[in-house]
């Protein structure tokens, strides 16, 4: 299980005292169609990137706020990981990318008719962003625009 008290003391102290940011999302959106008709996308902070994409930059102060587009057709086993955090065990996502980016699971759900379809593009960030100003101002809104362009109806987000 995961609780702050499970983490290394230095992380506990940092994370308890951290002035977390919020973004006002109200009034909130609602799924306007049935799940079996909905197009679904995933956004993860597992720092996955394709071999032909640059890795995340773990040296940027405040965190790398960029993202990588992961097309649905990607072979998940080819994805690489460039996460700067040592607060979590990377073995799980290294052995099965679906643990954070469940494209194979979503494809099965679409084939079974549980969801309508899987979006053509999914998005990977590196989550260790202590200074999220440019994430909030630039890159997250860019991803939101691309999701709208792809007529995505619902988004699942996963941290690591």
């Amino acid at each position: 299980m995961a609780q702050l008290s499970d983490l290394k003391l230095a992380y506990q102290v940092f994370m308890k005292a951290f002035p977390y940011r919020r973004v006002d999302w109200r009034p909130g959106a609602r799924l306007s169609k049935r799940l079996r008709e909905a197009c679904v996308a995933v956004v993860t902070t597992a720092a996955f990137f394709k071999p032909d994409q640059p890795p995340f930059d773990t040296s940027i102060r405040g965190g790398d706020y960029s993202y990588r587009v992961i097309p649905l057709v990607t072979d998940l086993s080819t994805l690489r990981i460039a996460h700067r955090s040592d607060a979590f065990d990377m073995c799980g996502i290294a052995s099965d990318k679906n643990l954070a980016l469940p494209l194979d699971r979503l494809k099965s759900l679409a084939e079974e008719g549980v969801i309508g379809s899987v979006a053509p593009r999914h998005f990977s960030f590196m989550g260790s962003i202590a200074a999220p100003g440019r994430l909030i101002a630039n890159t997250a809104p860019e991803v939101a625009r691309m999701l709208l362009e792809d007529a995505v109806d619902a988004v699942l987000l996963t941290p690591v």
Partner: protein
Amino acid sequence: MCHQSVGLIQSIIEKAGIPTASVTLLREITERVAPPRALFVDFPLGYPLGAPNDAALQTRIILSAFEMLAESVPPAIIRDFEVLPPQDLSGAD
């Protein structure tokens, strides 16, 4: 920090008009970032959908998160994922 990032990205996507649901491994952080809908899963950091190569568990977590999508917000919702499916609990004695 992953949980702050997810909550912020989620809030921005929701604000753009697309309903969102996230998984959280750290309820304490997600409560403070307060995104629209989060499913708390009691697994270690790095294991948001439970276990690698366990398609059934991953799918159950995904569907539990999707169940929240039809719910109206605000306020922000954090729900607990029931680790054992109901049929396992009934036969637990």
